[in-house]
């Protein structure tokens, strides 16, 4: 019933990569002012370190809400592609949002899950995805058919390019190492939100 597409690999076959390196590769593919929501912790720290695009939103709290926030932006701006970068622990906290995304089926939403199998920022306690839960299988089961593990860096690039052109929401899961983020986001929520809204053309005259 839920047979994997030809060529799809399981989590255990995926190469362990580095979040900052892949964040840079992902951002390098963004040519159309795509919006990016960085989930709490290292996901948004590495997004911050990759270059502070005005279309980036850095989440300083509300663990688990990167995907719901991205869905809201995607509904508000259907012509702009929106990406959520979320960690495995955060996604496990709010799994229901995958079903909501599948039910709404926005054409302009891509979810990237950085899975290092640990709650890295709190002392590296193991998450359920380290041993039991397969986040891609969960996403497919929730109804996001286009969900896949990235086999290696080149595969990640291909999956991202395909997701940016897709007509349905996509999820890309990536096994990553336990290296901490390379920088820390400035903790100023109002400035982050204001800059993001200007970057999306909602406020001011920066971007149309």
């Amino acid at each position, binding site marked *: 019933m839920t047979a994997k597409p030809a060529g799809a690999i399981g989590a255990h076959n995926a190469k362990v990569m580095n979040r900052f390196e892949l964040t840079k590769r992902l951002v390098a593919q963004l040519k159309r002012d795509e*919006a990016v*929501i960085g989930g709490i912790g290292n996901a948004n720290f590495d997004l911050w370190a990759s270059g502070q695009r005005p279309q980036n*939103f850095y*989440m*300083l*709290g*509300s*663990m*688990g*809400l990167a*995907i*719901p*926030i*991205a*869905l*809201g*932006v*995607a*509904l*508000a*701006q259907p012509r*702009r592609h929106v990406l959520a970068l979320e960690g495995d622990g955060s996604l496990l906290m*709010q799994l*229901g*949002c995958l*079903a*909501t995304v599948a*039910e*709404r089926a926005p054409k302009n939403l891509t979810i990237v899950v950085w899975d290092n199998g640990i709650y890295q920022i709190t002392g590296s306690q193991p998450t359920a995805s380290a041993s039991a839960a397969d986040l891609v299988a969960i996403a497919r089961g929730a109804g996001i058919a286009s969900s896949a593990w990235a086999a290696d860096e080149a595969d990640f690039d291909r999956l991202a390019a395909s997701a940016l052109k897709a007509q349905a929401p996509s999820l890309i899961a990536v096994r990553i190492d336990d290296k901490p983020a390379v920088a820390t986001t400035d903790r100023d*929520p*109002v400035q*982050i*939100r204001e800059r*993001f*809204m200007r970057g*999306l*053309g*909602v406020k001011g005259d920066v971007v149309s």
Partner: protein
Amino acid sequence: MTDSQTRATTWHEIVLATLKANDVKLVVYVPDRVFTPLIKAIHADQFFTAFAATREEEALGIVTGAWMGGLRGAVLMQTSGFATIPNALASLVVPCQIPALIFVSERGTLGEFNLGQALVCKTMRPVLNSLAVENITITRQDELAFTIDRSIKQAVATQAPVAFILSPLLTGGKVFGA
């Protein structure tokens, strides 16, 4: 006040007309028996994009993203669901200054049969007050349109969330066996 607000004769017609008059196009909810006529009417009206979230804090995340993208949104929930949102309020909506419009169907008072609702009801206003979130309990239909209309405008103008607690005195509430 628009014609449809003036013509509205039930609490849910007034809420719907007032959301419309203020260009609130997105409604995300976790279902509630008392809000059922409002939710049905919103679904039936092409003006709105309406759907259920799996959890109330998820709904708040969605309307936060929508606001930042230029779309006004409201969240509907019952009282027990309020207990899932303080973290989203304290670490996202309030610090980011998001004018989230929160409608809570008040349970746990005036004849409640469900103990869980009753205890959450007692925490709701203290939590909102301690976060300095504007919260207004509405008991009278003749004050409903004015209260919601002005408070939505204030929320947007001051970039701050607002919670409307709709009392059983307004909605009829939910009674045992209903």
